[in-house]
Structures are given as C-alpha cells and as structure tokens.
C-alpha cells in the first residue's frame, strides 16, 4: 500500500509539474492581493457582440458602468452596437475580431496588454445549421467550422488573454455554452456537431478551471436557455425567453461565480447543469 501511494504521489507530482510547467509567473499568494480601490472600473471583453446575446451583454454591462471591449466580425455592419457605443463613448470600444483568426486574437492581446480584463466573455458561437448534421448527410467541413468557432476560439482567447484576466480584480473567464452540450441531458438525436462542440468546449474549460484556480482565476460555462435571438430563428416565440432576461440571468451567475464554484456549468436559473 505504501509503495503504491508513493508511486501514486510520484505520478501525480510528475503530471502536475508537467501540466503546470508551462505557466509563467509566480502563484498568487494571499498577501499579494492588490487593493483595487472603490473607483475601480471593471472591464468585460465580449466576442460576437454585434447582435443577439452578445449585443445585450454590451448593453447591460455598459449600463452598469463597466468598460466594454466589444468585438464582432464586421463592426462596420454592426449598427446597433455602434449606437450603444456612441451612447457610452467613454465605456464601449469596438474591435474587429473573427474568433477563428488566431493572428487577430494575438494582435488584440498585444494591443490590450496593459488592460486588466475582469470578465473574458466567450459569447460568439454558431450552430452549423441543422441540415448539415443529419445522420447520413453529415458535412464534416461544417463540423470543423463549428469546432473552430465554438471550441477552439474560446480556448485560444483564454490562452492569449489570461495575463489580462490575472491582472484584474474579478478574474473570470466565461464561456456561453448550451444545455445542448450536456451529454447527460441529451434525450433526442439532433445537432450532432453543435452538441459535440459544446461538450468539447466544456471539457476544455473544466481543464482550464483546474489549471488557473491557484492563480485566483475562476472559469465557468453559462447557459442562456432558449432565447429569442437570430440563433433560434424558426422556433415558436412562446418557447423562447426574452434576450434581456437571458442575459441578466447569465450576468447574475457570472457575478456569483467564485474560485469555489469554478469549473461549473450554470443553468440560467443558477442551478448546475450535469455534463
């Protein structure tokens, strides 16, 4: 038994060292805690901010007086986002970003290198279209595209902006996932690629939560529930929740996140969604 536990400790130590070895910088100790002061204005970085949930996130965070870095693929076409930005000139900054463009992500991380980001909000997502993910007619290039947007991008953005998050007060990395990504919750066959991309990103973010916890960074997935946005076009309105409610619910769950609850997947009502 002793031999086994010694070997178990050895392998655990080896794996931890290996996994954590890539992180630079010291572990945050309790007495290193920075006093951010009462005047501190937190910052949220939002992807896919031109419409739907992303746009509503911009609205609600700006109304709270937060700095908002709002990204979208084509800012010139994002009229509603521009309108919000002109109402909150001092708070809202628009940046062009296609989340599948790793070079652009790195460029923005460099540009904002001195800006603490309290909430890094991976909101951008695509479904891939129902017709492309039917058994017998699966389009695997669509799967790759769905993975690039829903799974790879949140990971890459988290990797590039971790230092910004660590330098902030709230230190949160949030990904808008979906209850469709709950393997335990799947009861009807549909949306193979979309669901798989969400299960995959849930695993990546759970891993990330374990990785950055001792740096005081918390990581979570939030689920808006079925919401009345372009994403759900075609579903009867009575099945859908208003965008304002979906976003205020998600923000409440983001506010409530701590390092104790890091790595969880929050339903809009605050309950935990099983994997």
């Amino acid at each position, binding site marked *: 038994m002793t031999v086994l536990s010694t070997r178990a400790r050895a392998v655990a130590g080896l794996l931890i060292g*290996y996994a954590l070895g890539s992180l630079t910088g010291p572990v945050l100790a309790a007495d290193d805690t920075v006093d951010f002061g009462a005047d501190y204005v937190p910052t949220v970085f939002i992807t896919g901010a031109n419409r739907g949930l992303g746009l509503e996130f911009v609205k609600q965070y700006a109304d709270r007086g937060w700095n908002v870095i709002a990204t979208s693929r084509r800012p010139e076409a994002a009229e509603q986002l521009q309108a919000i930005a002109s109402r909150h000139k001092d708070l809202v900054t628009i940046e062009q970003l296609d989340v599948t463009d790793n070079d652009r992500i790195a460029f923005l991380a460099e540009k904002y290198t001195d800006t603490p980001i309290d909430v890094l909000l991976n909101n951008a997502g695509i479904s891939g279209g129902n017709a492309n993910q039917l058994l017998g007619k699966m389009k695997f290039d669509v799967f790759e595209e769905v993975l690039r947007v829903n799974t790879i991008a949140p990971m890459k953005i988290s990797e590039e902006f971790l230092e910004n998050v660590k330098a902030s007060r709230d230190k949160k990395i949030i990904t808008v996932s979906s209850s469709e990504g709950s393997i335990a919750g799947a009861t009807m066959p549909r949306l193979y690629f979309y669901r798989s991309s969400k299960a995959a990103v849930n695993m990546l973010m759970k891993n990330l939560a374990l990785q950055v916890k001792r740096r005081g960074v918390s990581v979570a997935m939030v689920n808006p529930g079925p919401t009345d946005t372009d994403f759900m076009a075609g579903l009867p309105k009575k099945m859908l929740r208003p965008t304002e409610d979906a976003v205020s619910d998600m923000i409440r769950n983001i506010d409530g996140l701590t390092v104790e609850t890091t790595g969880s997947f929050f339903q809009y009502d605050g309950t935990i969604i099983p994997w």
Partner: protein
Amino acid sequence: MDKDQGLELGRREFIASVAGFAAGVVASSAAPAAAAGLDPLPAPIEKKTTVLITGANRGLGFEFARRYAERGWRVIATCRRPSGADALNELAAQSADVLVEQLDVVDHQRIDDLAARYRNMPIDVLLNNAGIGGGAENQLFGRLNYDVYRQVMDVNASGPIKMAEAFSKHVKASDLKKIITVSSSQGSISKVNLPMLYWYRSSKSAVNMLMVNLALQVRRRGIIVGLVTPGATATDFIAPRFRKAIPNIREPAVAVADMMRNIDRFTLENTGTFLNYDGGIVPW
C-alpha cells in the same frame, strides 16, 4: 426539427442502392469502390459473426483482432499501413477469416469505398478503436498546438461518427447490431481533477456526445451503441516513461478481455452508456 429526417433518407438511399445492385445497375454507393480500384468481395459470403476493427495493427486493436479471431469470428482488421503491420499480417496468414484492409480513419473517401466493398457483408460489431493522444507536449496551456487539436478531433471524434455513418447499414443487417467506440475515462468531464491533455480529453468528450446522439437515433432500428474504456494500459499509446509511473497499469490482454465482456453486455437497454473496464458506468 424533424429527428427522423436523416433516418428516413438513409433508408431510402439504402433501398435504392440495394434495388440498383439487384438489377445489375451500379448504384451510386458502389461507384467510389470501382473508381478507387477496390474490388468487390468474391461471392458468396459465408454467414459468420463479423467485427470490423480500426487501428488493428498494434496495441488494443491488435489484441481485439487476435481475440475475436480466436472466438471464431470474421475480423475485418483495418490499419493505416498494412505493409508495416507484421503481427497482423501473420495473424491473417494463419486464418482466412482475418481480412486486412488499409484505412486511415481521417480519409472519408476511403471509408466510403470500404463500405461499398463490404456492402453485402453484415457487420455485427463495428469497433472504433483507432485513436491518437496528440502528444502531451502539444497540449500544455500557454503552448497549445491548435493544428494538433484538429488532428486529434479528426481521428478520435470525426472518424468514429463517419465510420458509423458509412457502416450503419452493414450493422443493421447483422445479428448483433453493435457500434462500439473505445473512449477514455480522460473524456469524463466530471471526473477530471488535474489539468492535462486538453486536446485528447476534449476529443473524447466530443465523441461521447456524438455516440450518445447516435444511440438515440438508431435505437428504433435495433442498433446498439456503446462506449468502452480500457483503463490505463501498457501499449505504445502511453510512453514508457509514463507507463512506469502509473500504478496498476493494465496489460493489453486484460484490458481487451474486459472490454469484450462489456461489448457482449451491451443491449438496447443500456445503449448509449459508457462502460468502464470493470463494468461500472463512467459518468459524463
């Protein structure tokens, strides 16, 4: 959305291809095989319990091939480079029921060609065994190699669902009707407690979801879908320096015997579940 849309279309295509074959017309599904030079199998095909195994040249896959052949099953053993698969070729030389086929599971055209070649052979167990780890050094946070992620997803997630899509008709035509994927407890989101192997783990969560969806979809056709895990096993998959550090690392023969027992246990009652090597359920 209509959950049966894909199902119905698949059935129509199948009927059309069978009708075309019977009438001596080359059906669309048969065309790629001819184009790729894959000859149809010599007829008649003797009825025999059949398993198709991917990644059958070494490790767990080879052990599966050996054990199923011992059971007297017909084994369609696929691997990327049959020319280098000495042990598998030796096994095939000893038994006419072991058929070696070249297949890289990222090559979807080749999958379709093989499905066309074996279109008249029922496959009782489609065994998605091929998998890659991606290398621990490519999945360290801060140095994540995204090209490797695509490869890992192509092999571990897209490969199995493409195989299932291409061979579902063969499985449906069989007696046992099972589609099995070798997953990993590393794909259990609720169980992970140390940060590592981002890509590998994520690919296994992804394939778990795909297979649960598949289970829900094909259940009413009588097809059973299952996920199995071997536990940490002493194969080339785990580098020797890590193998030594893992307490209770399992031998391939033991891991495969356990998985075969679990594959036998899959029925329509427990379709869509993830069975640990000890027979317990692995949580998602």
